[in-house]
């Protein structure tokens, strides 16, 4: 370590200690201080590690958590960044906090924001990259899916020897020739048919000849066993295959990968993709399928986003929704519930939610109309938008309660006829709701994720 890096590391570590001891927080400021003193600090800090970078628009956090669990079955020391600290400063802080490993070469599994991949690869050559998926973000943070993928590739270009472990069902990950070794994972549990994605789907043009892609099988959005009837472009050979999809409920999924049975304590097809990615990294790093199964069974707390809160006997599940594909998947997931439930939709449009509420129209709320949901409540700062959305989706007025005020929404929740209530909320609406539930003593802390 150079003198400069030494000073920078010391300053960063001291500030972290200070912030945590006296201010109970600070996950990016220590990184910021360290970076100011030594902009090349990641080279020094990361040199000791084998690094796996996990990136993509959806599923990064859970894939990272699952991958860490899986790799723990074989490797004792794994460094990882806490939720949300996936930009440069947060990553530097993560390395600063690491205890010096006693023996061997430790692993670091990092969730990295799409545009920050290059800020890691400038200094560190990862052993592997994981590409989860690229869906359009309603916030338009980086714009179009092609721009987002290019940002990732700009970072990958600096690490041409790193193995890419990519979602093979996503056509965009097969659109560019890359020098890196590539392994694909995907769903291979259905017989071949010939269909197109539903009309309101993003990214359905053949990257090769710009005709509309067809599919032998589809999971959701534009993911599946795609092929182009015009030029023959098709899904690449899969290294890791989901060979059987078993029972799915809102709180569990059973499936087989490469013939090995697995169960995860969380619902949603998107979470099976996350598990598939973690399996792929595990196998790439030499973890056995039985060990991976142990990891999936042992780690229920990584699925913390779907915490159940007891509100005077009502089981209330708050689920964060933030973009159309995620929303669709959540709607599909709660649709697998065999028990009756009530539904609450809370919409805000602050910066952290996305200031444009148009995206709620891309979510397929129409699939709820057949469910006979006894009570639907809509609220939040933009309650008018979500109210009309559900009205158009076919929710009858006599079952629909409109209540902008979240305190009163809690009162309404207590009155519903079902034991179980799903609350779908945008980011700031979820924080407000949790704060109210915390003030009333239903949850311990204000922050659940």
């Amino acid at each position, binding site marked *: 370590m150079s003198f400069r890096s030494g000073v920078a590391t010391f300053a960063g570590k001291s500030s972290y200690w200070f912030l945590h001891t006296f201010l109970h927080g600070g996950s990016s400021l220590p990184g910021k201080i360290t970076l100011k003193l030594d902009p090349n600090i990641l080279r020094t800090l990361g040199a000791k590690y084998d690094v796996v970078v996990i990136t993509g628009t959806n599923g990064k956090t859970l894939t990272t958590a699952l991958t860490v669990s899986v790799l723990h079955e074989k490797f004792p020391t794994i460094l990882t960044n806490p939720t949300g600290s996936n930009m440069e400063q947060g990553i530097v802080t993560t390395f600063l906090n690491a205890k010096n490993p006693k023996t061997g070469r430790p692993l670091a599994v990092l969730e990295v924001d799409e545009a920050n991949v290059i800020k890691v690869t400038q200094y560190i050559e990862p052993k592997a990259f994981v590409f989860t998926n690229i869906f359009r973000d309603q916030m338009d943070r980086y714009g179009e899916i092609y721009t987002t993928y290019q940002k990732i590739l700009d970072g990958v270009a600096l690490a041409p020897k790193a193995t890419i472990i990519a979602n093979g069902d996503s056509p965009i990950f097969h659109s560019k020739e890359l020098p890196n070794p590539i392994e694909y994972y995907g769903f291979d549990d259905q017989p071949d048919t010939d269909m197109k994605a539903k009309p309101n789907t993003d990214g359905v043009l053949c990257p090769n000849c710009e005709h509309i892609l067809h599919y032998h099988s589809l999971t959701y959005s534009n993911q599946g066993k795609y092929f182009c009837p015009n030029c023959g472009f098709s899904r690449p050979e899969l290294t890791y295959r989901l060979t059987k999809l078993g029972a799915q409920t809102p709180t569990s999924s059973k499936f087989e990968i490469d013939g090995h049975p697995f169960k995860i304590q969380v619902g949603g097809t998107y979470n099976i993709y996350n598990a598939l990615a973690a399996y792929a990294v595990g196998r790439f790093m030499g973890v056995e399928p039985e060990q991976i199964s142990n990891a999936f069974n042992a780690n229920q707390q990584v699925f913390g986003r779907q915490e159940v809160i007891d509100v005077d006997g009502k089981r209330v599940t708050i689920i964060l929704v933030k973009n159309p594909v995620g929303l669709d998947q959540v709607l599909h997931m709660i649709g697998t519930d065999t028990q009756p439930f009530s539904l609450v939709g809370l919409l805000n449009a602050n910066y952290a939610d996305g200031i444009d509420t*148009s995206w709620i129209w891309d979510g397929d709320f129409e699939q709820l109309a057949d469910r006979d949901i006894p009570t639907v409540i809509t609220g939040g700062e933009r309650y008018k938008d979500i109210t009309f959305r559900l009205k158009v989706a076919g929710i009858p007025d006599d079952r629909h309660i409109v209540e902008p005020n979240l305190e009163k929404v809690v009162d309404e929740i207590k009155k519903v006829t079902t034991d179980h209530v799903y609350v779908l909320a945008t980011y700031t609406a979820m924080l407000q709701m949790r704060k109210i539930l915390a003030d009333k003593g239903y949850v311990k802390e204000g922050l659940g994720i």
Partner: protein
Amino acid sequence: MSYELNVAHLYGDLMNTYGDVGNILALNYYAKQMDVTLNVKVVSLEEDFTSAAYDLAFFGGGQDFEQTIVSQDIQTKKAELTKFIESGGPLLAICGGFQLLGHYYIGADGEKLPGIGALDHYTLAQDHNRFIGNIVIKNQETGETYHGFENHQGLTYLGKDERPLGNVVSGKGNNGEDGTEGAIYKNVYCSYFHGPILTRNGDIAKHLLIAALQRKYPDVDFSKQEALPIPATF
């Protein structure tokens, strides 16, 4: 009796940003209340659009890449789309769809891409800037106020045969200079509004549906449909 309208969702599989599909959902919602069934069909690449086959059309916005592909393909539909528009066919075009009905637009890489020139506007591009935010406009003829969310890099300038959809009350509009937003030409309504436009401004959905009904069933009295109240949704 009940009525049927055939709706062309132009390039619905490629031009579908920011909830624009909500316009189809809103059309359906109001059509049901007017005793009208909509048969919606996506008309996309290498598929024919025949003017006589449709009573109403919707054309949404797209991502840059998809829009360049549509810019090429739509030339094959230019004659029939122009015929549809000139014969009073009602059409709603948003963002990229609005741009492609005009003469040309400037793409993301500065290239000039052709529209079909059925309407007399053209679109330039801002340099590394977008108009993003809530917008309110007022239509001077009807007195109606419309609410939307704009998110566009394009700067559109209307031709002499076009009236704006409204004048900007707050927000940027077509180009941030002349106070216009959107365009009206015959029964064509154009706008940069997402939100989507018809979910927040049911009056426009009603105008489109009434125009389509009167054109398809010229001998029927639609005063009952015209009297349908449109409660505020925004």
